[in-house]
């Protein structure tokens, strides 16, 4: 369904800030699957998601969605197939517009926007029902600016907006990380229910081993822009948070060894 073939991306090439954020990522995702992405800070998880969403141009590699090459397609066009929720709860909504207006923008994802009214009474009634399904009491505040809501409320609405028109692919980038544990759990529960209801194909980045174990049917681990582990099926089911911590410890050991190895090589060959 989604196919990533040999993706490469270097930020700021040729400068002291050069970062090889993706170096040869290949991955194939089946329709209806739920993939959790793990990795240390700066390993390239967000970059991988952004590559799929199209926020930057790749150095090389091909991205196929439903057999179609979308590598060169601009972000706003890909958005027709992709719903996204960001780590920052303020990134996914327009603060100076009302809840209803925000939903209206989301309701036209993948459709042609014209001169018809954004908030017809039929549309408003639909938004009321959808917002009510969040059970947060926000349905009575549809005409309030979103900027007046809490981060958790805004994140729940962003999730709702991303899935308002069923996306082919849902991209979640640590979308509960900035919320307090209780709100985070609530948003995660909403996520789980919307994914199950619509059988959405999902890509989720998280730092929580518990989430990784509880959710999804596949775990991939990213390190320095490469895929280093890929568990699915029974292997994934058998994983415990402790196993995942082990894998992270192993990465840490590798990072400790790396400079040491370097010194040895220098001593021997330079």
């Amino acid at each position, binding site marked *: 369904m989604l196919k990533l073939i040999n993706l490469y991306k270097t930020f700021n090439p040729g400068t002291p800030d050069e970062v090889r954020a993706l170096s040869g990522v290949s991955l194939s995702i089946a329709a209806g699957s739920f993939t959790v992405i793990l990795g240390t800070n700066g390993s390239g998880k967000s970059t991988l998601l952004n590559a799929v969403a199209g926020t930057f141009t790749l150095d090389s590699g091909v991205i196929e969605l439903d057999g179609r090459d979308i590598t060169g397609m601009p972000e706003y*066009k890909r958005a027709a197939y992709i719903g996204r929720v960001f780590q920052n709860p303020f990134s996914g909504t327009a603060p100076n517009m009302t809840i209803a*207006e925000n939903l209206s923008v989301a309701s*036209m994802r993948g459709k042609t926007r*014209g001169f018809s009214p954004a*908030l017809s009474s039929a549309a408003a009634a639909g938004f009321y029902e959808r917002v009510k399904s969040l059970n947060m009491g926000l349905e009575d505040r549809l005409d309030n600016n979103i900027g007046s809501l809490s981060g958790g409320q805004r994140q729940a609405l962003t999730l709702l907006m991303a899935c308002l028109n069923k996306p082919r692919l849902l991209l979640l980038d640590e979308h509960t990380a900035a919320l307090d544990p209780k709100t985070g759990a609530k948003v995660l529960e909403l996520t789980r229910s919307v994914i199950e209801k619509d059988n959405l194909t999902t890509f989720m980045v998280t730092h929580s081993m518990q989430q990784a174990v509880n959710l999804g049917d596949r775990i991939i681990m990213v390190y320095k822009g490469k895929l280093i582990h890929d568990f699915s099926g029974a292997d994934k089911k058998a994983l415990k948070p402790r196993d995942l911590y082990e894998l992270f410890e192993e990465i840490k050991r590798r990072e400790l060894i790396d400079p040491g190895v370097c010194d040895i090589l220098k001593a021997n060959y330079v």
Partner: protein
Amino acid sequence: MSLLMATFTIGLILSVLAIGVLISFRIFNFADITSEGSLALGASVAAVLITSKSFGPFTVLFISAAAGAAAGALTGVLHTKFKINALLAGILVMTALYSVNLHVMGKSNVALMNEETIFTLFNKHLSISETVNETVKISGFLVNLKDLSSALLSLVGAFVCGLALYLFLKTKLGVAMRATGDNTQMASALGVNTDLMVISGLAIANALAALSGALLASYQGFADVQIGLGMLVWGLASVIIGETLVRDKSIGLAITAAVMGSIFFRLLVAIALRFGMNPNDMKLITAVFVLMALIIPELGKKNKLTESRIVKTN
């Protein structure tokens, strides 16, 4: 009384510019100085077309607005496609427009004596003579009929522009445009072609500026290449005064507020001039006024921040 009517009329004509500035300043959060060039462009194009006598007054206004839209779109393209800073893109286009306007007019100003403009057309329809000064008495004041009809026409013009913008901003395209200005990342992620929104938004804003210029030239009976000078700050002042008068931030009221702000600001200036303000100081005072209006709310915020910090440390 005649002075008061003229003040009102010019306030209304410039409110069309203010509505345009509202788009760039409040939707896209930057002051688009292209407006100054576009206003002069609208005036120049209108003056030349009017003296050529080959188009009706409505067509003249339409073509002037279209010229402004092209200028605004150019600024938008420079900003979005060539990644030039928005202010700089505006400055470049405004500077270029100065020469364009000189070429359009062929000289630095064009007089419109005894030409048919939208104002004279309106007078004709109301059977008001251009040559005889007819007056009516309104609550004890003698009002020149021509002044009255010009004010009325400007009111209709401002109303139509304001209403059209209001209705547009409530459409699906309109909310996408507002979302683009409010949160570009979100708009893109929801499939909005944000570059196109910025380009068309600036096109609309500058079409309004040019329309305002065309109306101003028609009303004053001349176009001058300098006519746009300082007009952006004028527009900003109108928007800001309007916001102080009308505290509500909904779109309909924001547009109404910009119109009211424009009239109110004109009145203030007329009064100040009447009481002996040196006309040379006008732009200085306007600039200082806008500066204060921008600074004072920020100072308020800072005070609140320091207050809350004090509370916390206690």
